[in-house]
C-alpha cells in the first residue's frame, strides 16, 4: 500500500539558509506521525510547504500518489490539507462563528450573510470538538487554548484529510491538552493522515505511532515501531548527543533575601500577594493557565501598575512603576507571549538583542557603539546557538525557538540581579532546554536570582529550589524542594470547589 501523503526529496532554500535538505518520508491514512527536531531543524518550513505557503526549491509533495503543485494556500486547502500553526491566525475582533467560516460565509438568496445558518454550522462544529464556547463570542475574549481549539475546528470544517499540528500544546492547559489528544485519536480513527510537531517527548509517545527525527534540515531517521524507541534514543538522534536528565539539577548555595514583595495588589490578582526571593535562588511559580502568575509577574516588573503593596530590594523599599524602573534596579522580564510582547519582528537580531543593554555602552550618552553591539550579538549567537544566517536577519524570520533565544540573550547581556522568566522554554528543543537550565544554575551560582514561571510541572519541579503555587489570582502555598510531589502540587493548583 502506498502512503497517502509523501514528501519526495523536498528541499527549501532561503537566502543564506538551507531550511530543508532532500527530505523524503511518508504518512499513511490513520497514522499520527510525529516530527521532532531542534529549533530551526525545518519542521515548520516543511508544514508551510505542505500548506502551499512556500514553494519547495526542489522535490514535491504527493497526495494519493499525485504530485501536488500548490500555487497558494487555497490550493492546499482544496486538496484537503489543514495546518494548525505554531502562531495562530484568527481575527480577534470577529466572533468565533465568523472566524470559523471566514471566506466561506453562508449567503442568503439576497446575497447577504445568513447569520442563522452560520451560527448553526459553527455550533455543530464546536460541539464536535467538545467545546462549550459561545459562537457569538469575540475571539479576543478567549484564552489562547480556546483559540487553538477554534483553529482545529476550522480545519475540521473544511473536511481535511491531512491535518498537521505545529506545536499545538505549547500554550494549552493540561485539560485542554487531554481534550486535544482525544480529538486527534478520533481523527485518526476516521482515517485522517496526521502530522504532529512537538518538542514534548512524552506527547510523542502518548499519541504518535510513527516518529521522524529532523536535524539541520535533513531527515535523520523514521521510527515506525514506537515500542523499539525510547526517550533517550530520540533525544540523542535529535541533538546528536546523549542527554540523560534534561534538568540536571544542581544543589547551590543561597544567600539573603534580595526581593521581598508585600501585599502586592493589582489587575489579575484576587488577593494581595506576598513572597520573597533569596539571592542565588530559583523560585518556581506553578499554576494553571489563568491562575494569575503572568499577571503577578507583570505587576512586579512594572508592566502593569499595581494598586497596592510594596517592594523591598535588599531590604530597602523601592518604587517600581514602569519596566524601565525595574530594569534600572537590575530586574528583567522575559514575557510569555514572545510574538506580541517579546520580539520586534521586523528589526534585526542585532537590534533585538541590544535594545536594552546598549545604554551601558553608548558614547556621550547618545551614540551607539556599533562594534560593541555586534560583539555582544555574536557572542550570544554562539553561546545560545541561535540559528540565523547572520546578525542582521530580521527576527521574524527565525524559527520559533530561536526567537525565544534572542529574547533570552537580550537579558543575559545585562547585569542581571533578578531575572523573571515566564515560560522560558516554550517552543525550545530538549538540547537547548538543557543548556538554558544549566545557564540558570550558572547565573544563580554567580549570585543572581531567578523567578521561573511555567505551566510545565516537570519543568518547575525540575529546576526550582522552592515553588509557589497560584490559583485563581492568589498565592495558595509554597513548597521547599524536598517537599515537591506532583500530586500535592497539582491538588493545590486545581480549583477546589469545596473551599468556596
Amino acid at each position, binding site marked *: 500500500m502506498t502512503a497517502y501523503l509523501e514528501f519526495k526529496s523536498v528541499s527549501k532554500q532561503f537566502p543564506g539558509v538551507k531550511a530543508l535538505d532532500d527530505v523524503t518520508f511518508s504518512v499513511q491514512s490513520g497514522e499520527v506521525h510525529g516530527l521532532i527536531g531542534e529549533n530551526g531543524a525545518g519542521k515548520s518550513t516543511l508544514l508551510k510547504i505542505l500548506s502551499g505557503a512556500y514553494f519547495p526549491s526542489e522535490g514535491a509533495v504527493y497526495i494519493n500518489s499525485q504530485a501536488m503543485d500548490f500555487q497558494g494556500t487555497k490550493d492546499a486547502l482544496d486538496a484537503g490539507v489543514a495546518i494548525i500553526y505554531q502562531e495562530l491566525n484568527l481575527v480577534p475582533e470577529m466572533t468565533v462563528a465568523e472566524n470559523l467560516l471566514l471566506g466561506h460565509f453562508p449567503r442568503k438568496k439576497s446575497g447577504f450573510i445568513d447569520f442563522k445558518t452560520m451560527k448553526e454550522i459553527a455550533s455543530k462544529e464546536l460541539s464536535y470538538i467538545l467545546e462549550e464556547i459561545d459562537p457569538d463570542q469575540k475571539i479576543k475574549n478567549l484564552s489562547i487554548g480556546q483559540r487553538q481549539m477554534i483553529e482545529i475546528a476550522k480545519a475540521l470544517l473544511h473536511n481535511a484529510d491531512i491535518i498537521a499540528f505545529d506545536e499545538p500544546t505549547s500554550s494549552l492547559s493540561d485539560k485542554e491538552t487531554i481534550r486535544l489528544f482525544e480529538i486527534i485519536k478520533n481523527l485518526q480513527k476516521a482515517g485522517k493522515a496526521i502530522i504532529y510537531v512537538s518538542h514534548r517527548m512524552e506527547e510523542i509517545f502518548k499519541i504518535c505511532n510513527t516518529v521522524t527525527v529532523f536535524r539541520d534540515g535533513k531527515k535523520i531517521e523514521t521510527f515506525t515501531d514506537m515500542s523499539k524507541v525510547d526517550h533517550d534514543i530520540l533525544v540523542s538522534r535529535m541533538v546528536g548527543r546523549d542527554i540523560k536528565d534534561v534538568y540536571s539539577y544542581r544543589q547551590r548555595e543561597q544567600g539573603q533575601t534580595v526581593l521581598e514583595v508585600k501585599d502586592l495588589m493589582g489587575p489579575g490578582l484576587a488577593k494581595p500577594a506576598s513572597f520573597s526571593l533569596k539571592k542565588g535562588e530559583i523560585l518556581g511559580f506553578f499554576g494553571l493557565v489563568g491562575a494569575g502568575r503572568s499577571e503577578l509577574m507583570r505587576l512586579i516588573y512594572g508592566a502593569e501598575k499595581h494598586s497596592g503593596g510594596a517592594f523591598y530590594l535588599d531590604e530597602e523599599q523601592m518604587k517600581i512603576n514602569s*519596566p524601565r524602573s525595574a530594569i534600572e534596579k537590575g530586574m528583567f522580564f522575559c514575557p510569555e507571549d514572545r510574538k506580541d510582547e517579546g520580539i520586534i519582528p521586523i*528589526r534585526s537580531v542585532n537590534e533585538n538583542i541590544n535594545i536594552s543593554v546598549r545604554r551601558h555602552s553608548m558614547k556621550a550618552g547618545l551614540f*551607539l557603539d556599533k562594534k560593541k553591539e555586534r560583539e555582544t550579538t555574536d557572542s550570544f549567537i554562539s553561546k545560545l546557538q541561535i540559528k540565523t544566517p547572520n546578525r542582521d536577519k530580521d527576527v521574524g524570520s527565525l524559527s520559533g525557538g530561536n526567537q525565544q533565544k534572542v529574547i533570552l540573550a537580550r537579558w543575559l547581556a545585562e547585569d542581571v540581579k533578578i531575572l523573571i522568566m515566564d515560560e522560558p522554554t516554550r517552543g525550545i528543543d530538549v538540547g537547548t532546554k538543557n543548556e538554558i537550565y544549566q545557564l540558570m544554575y550558572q547565573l544563580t551560582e554567580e549570585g543572581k536570582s531567578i523567578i521561573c514561571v511555567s505551566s510545565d510541572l516537570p519543568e518547575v519541579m525540575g529546576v526550582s529550589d522552592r515553588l509557589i503555587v497560584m490559583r485563581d489570582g492568589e498565592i495558595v502555598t509554597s513548597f521547599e524542594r524536598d517537599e515537591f510531589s506532583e500530586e500535592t502540587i497539582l491538588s493545590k493548583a486545581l480549583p477546589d470547589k469545596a473551599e468556596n
Partner: protein
Amino acid sequence: MENTNAIKPVNPAVKVIRNLWENSGMLVIFILLFIILSIFVPYFFTWRNMIGLGLSVSMVGMVACTMLFCLASGDFDLSVENIVAFSGVTAAVVINATGSIFIGVLAGVLGGGLIGIINGTIIAKAGINALITTLGMAQIVRGMAFIVSGGSAVGITNMAFFNLGNGQFLGMPNPIWITIICFVVFGVLLNNTSYGKNTLAMGGNMEATRLAGVAVDKIKIMIFTIQGMMAGFAGVVLASRMTSGQPNTSIGFSLDVISACVLGGVSLSGGVAPIQGAIVGVLIMGTVQNAMNLMNIPTFYQYVVRGVILLIAVLIDRFKQTNTKN
C-alpha cells in the same frame, strides 16, 4: 501573518538584480528619471534650475527629516502644514514687535515645539490615535495663525531677517544648506543613536519595546516635539523667503511630506524608515514637479500626475514586500 503567496525558485543572476532593486530601487528610478529629464526637457539640467529645484524641495526636505521619525514609530503628523503657517506668522509678529530677529526665530521654533509637545502628550499619555489628534490640532493651529496675524499677511520690516531664506553661502542658497544639514543630523540620529533605534523598535512592536525597558511615552513626545520645532523652523525660513508671515500658506504640505517619505520606502505601519529613501522620495517629488513646470503642464494635470506617481510607488513597494517575505 503567514504569507500565502507561493514563490518559485530563481536563478542567481535574477537574484543579484533583485538585491540591487531591493536595496536602492527608488534611487535607481530617480537616477533614470533625472537622466531622461536632463536629455529631453530644455533648461532642466542647468545650474539655475538645479538651484530652483533645490529651493523648492528644501521645505519638504526639512520636515521630512522629522516626519521620518514619526512614521518610523508608527504614527504620523497632519498638523505640520499649519505649524508652518503659525510659526511664520508668529515670527513675523514678534520680530516687528521686538525688533529682534533672534527672539522672533526662537518664538517661531518654540511655538511649533509647544504644539508638538501637546500633540505628543495626547497621543502617548491618553492613547489617542495620531490621525485624530493631529487633525484636531491642525484646525486649532490654523485658527491661531489667523488670530495672531489678524487674518492677513504680516509684512516684516527688519530686512536683515530676509537673509535667512534668501541669502547664499558658497553660491548655494541657505535653505538648501539647512536641508542638507538636517538630513545629515537626522540620518545620524536615526542610525547611530538609541533615540533612532528605539523609535524604529517602537514602530516594529510597541509593547515589546516598552517591556524591553524603553521609555516609549517619553520618546513619542520627543518625536512630536522635535517635529513641531522643525515645522516651526521651516515656517520661519519660509516667512523669511516670502518677507512676510502668511497665515494661509502651505495647504496640503503635510501630505506632501508624508508622500515623499512613503515614496522613498518608509513604511506607514512603522519600523522601516531609511533616511536615504526619504531623501530620494523628496527629490523625485520635487523633480517631477519641476519638470512639469518647465514643460508648462497645467496645474490641474500636475495634481493627477503626482497622485499617480505616489500610487505607483506604493504599489511597487507592496510588490517588493510580498516577494521578500518568502
